[in-house]
């Protein structure tokens, strides 16, 4: 029997497979498909202090082996979440994480502070990397300085463990990862989506109501894997890898490149059972390869 558990230091996971924010609703949407306790954990959709309308539709475009979204973090806000959703997730034996958003640094801290006063949250994921909510697709994770400042502020506002989610739309992702580490983040997760666009030839308009959006799915996997590899060699905190993971083989590539755990995003849309199948696939692979603890795979790439 393979030991699938992984220890992030600040958090023990029963297995390294987490559902990614924005692709797993508030968790409840997946209850019809399987027992959520089978997951290593999941990250709920990004939350601001207040409810948020999100961007104007159309919000999705399919591209070769990829998906561009410009949801714009529509959501019920952190208060309604704690009042209406959190109680429904209470007692679940899996790591429930919340993706924390903010218009500016202060709001991130206030959302984190608010969540810190509630039970049942295993960790916060700091979403400083969404390309869909600021002018021109910009975000705090595009500079080490604003990353450092935001992480620092949030750390002061809560004692919940913090996972900082990084943006791939940067020249040097390791510099941003190091800034987050210096500011005290417990882990980093990457990658968020790549800023992208598509045009409708007949109307001559952007296919997305918000003009640009974020690219996810198998198309971006090779870029995500490269960034996880680079960041894992640059920081000491655990790295949670994601970007186009659709199979156990994909997850194993990320772990070999240095990820302690992985997140599964777009795959949840195509196959609501995706996380479950990946967990089973990891189990099978480890058994066939005589591996006792899946955590041994992390960073086992041979150069």
């Amino acid at each position, binding site marked *: 029997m393979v030991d699938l558990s992984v220890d992030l230091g600040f958090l023990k996971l029963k297995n390294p497979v987490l559902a990614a924010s924005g692709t797993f609703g508030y968790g409840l949407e*997946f209850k019809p498909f399987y027992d959520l306790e089978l997951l290593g954990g999941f990250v709920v959709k990004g939350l601001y202090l207040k409810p948020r309308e999100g961007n104007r539709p159309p919000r999705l475009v399919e591209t070769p082996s990829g998906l561009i979204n410009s949801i714009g973090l529509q959501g019920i806000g952190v208060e309604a979440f704690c009042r209406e959703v959190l109680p429904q997730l209470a007692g679940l034996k899996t790591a429930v994480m919340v993706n924390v958003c903010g218009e500016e640094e202060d709001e991130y801290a206030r959302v984190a502070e608010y969540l810190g006063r509630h039970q049942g949250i295993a960790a916060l994921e700091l979403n400083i990397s969404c390309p869909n909510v600021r002018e021109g697709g910009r975000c705090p994770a595009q500079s080490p300085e604003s990353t450092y400042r935001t992480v620092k502020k949030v750390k002061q506002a809560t004692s919940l463990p913090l996972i900082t989610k990084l943006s791939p739309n940067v020249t040097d992702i390791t510099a941003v990862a190091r800034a987050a580490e210096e500011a005290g983040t417990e882990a980093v997760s990457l990658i968020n989506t790549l800023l992208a666009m598509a045009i409708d030839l007949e109307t001559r308009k952007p296919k997305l109501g918000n003009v640009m959006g974020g690219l996810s799915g198998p198309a971006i996997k090779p870029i995500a894997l490269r960034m996880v590899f680079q960041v894992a060699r640059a920081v000491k905190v655990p790295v949670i890898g994601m970007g186009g993971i659709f199979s156990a083989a994909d997850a194993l590539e990320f772990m070999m490149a240095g990820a302690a755990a992985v997140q599964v995003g777009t795959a949840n849309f195509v196959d609501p059972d995706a996380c479950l199948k990946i967990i089973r696939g990891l189990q099978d692979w480890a058994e066939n390869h005589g591996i006792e603890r899946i955590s041994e795979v992390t960073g086992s790439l041979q150069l």
Partner: protein
Amino acid sequence: MVIDRQARLVAVESWDDYFLFTLESPQIACQARPGQFLMIRVSETSQPLLRRPISLHQAQGPHVQIFFQVAGEGTRLLSMKKTGQQLDILGPLGNGFTIRPELRGNEVFCVGGGRGIAPLYYLARELRASGARPIIFYGGRSGTDLPLKDRLRADGFEVLISTDDGSIGSPGFVTSLVEAELKKRRPAYLYACGPVPMMEKLAEICRLENLKAEFSLESMMGCGFGACWGCVKKIRRNDQEKYLKVCQDGPVFSLEEVVWQESEHG
């Protein structure tokens, strides 16, 4: 409650680029209601990536039917499936049309444009079973866009037909046919599914005539079960305009709820 399973394709009928599939799925068949839909996997590779939303066209015994038109790569791949193959489907999804007890004994208009007829046949049968008297309006660009007309009539429905090119039925848009018919009789309710301009025009007519109505909307869908917030449309509910999920809060909305947005026509 959503089900994710393999359904065997037991029969295929086709007319040009329209296809009628019969699938074996007792679980879905016994839960389904008109206006609900399936999310169907069309490819085994990552291209195209997403499932495709297709309405339920019929549910009977252990079988459900879908009726679709080839619109692009995804529906083309779907159309190439062969009898005996397993289809990977999710469903039944969304809220269907409401079938109101008070419609019993009353005439009801069901207006379908092109492939929009798909959910209306199912609806018309359920309406009839509930004691209402559905009249089906079926419009298309040309005669070849109305492959189901004989079948609907053979099933005993009153079917009024229009084609934009006048090749069969009354010439012009189906909305003009509805307007003409409204001069003769007044239905208790109107249900519609079809292209946005058709439904927008119908909404205008309904407001003028003070008719109650429900519309089934289409939208690009990421998941089909409420997880992605990708399919939203502006909806007026409790005096507020909000982006609601077509997959979960719809795809059927009432006349007063739908906010027709210029920008989304194209």
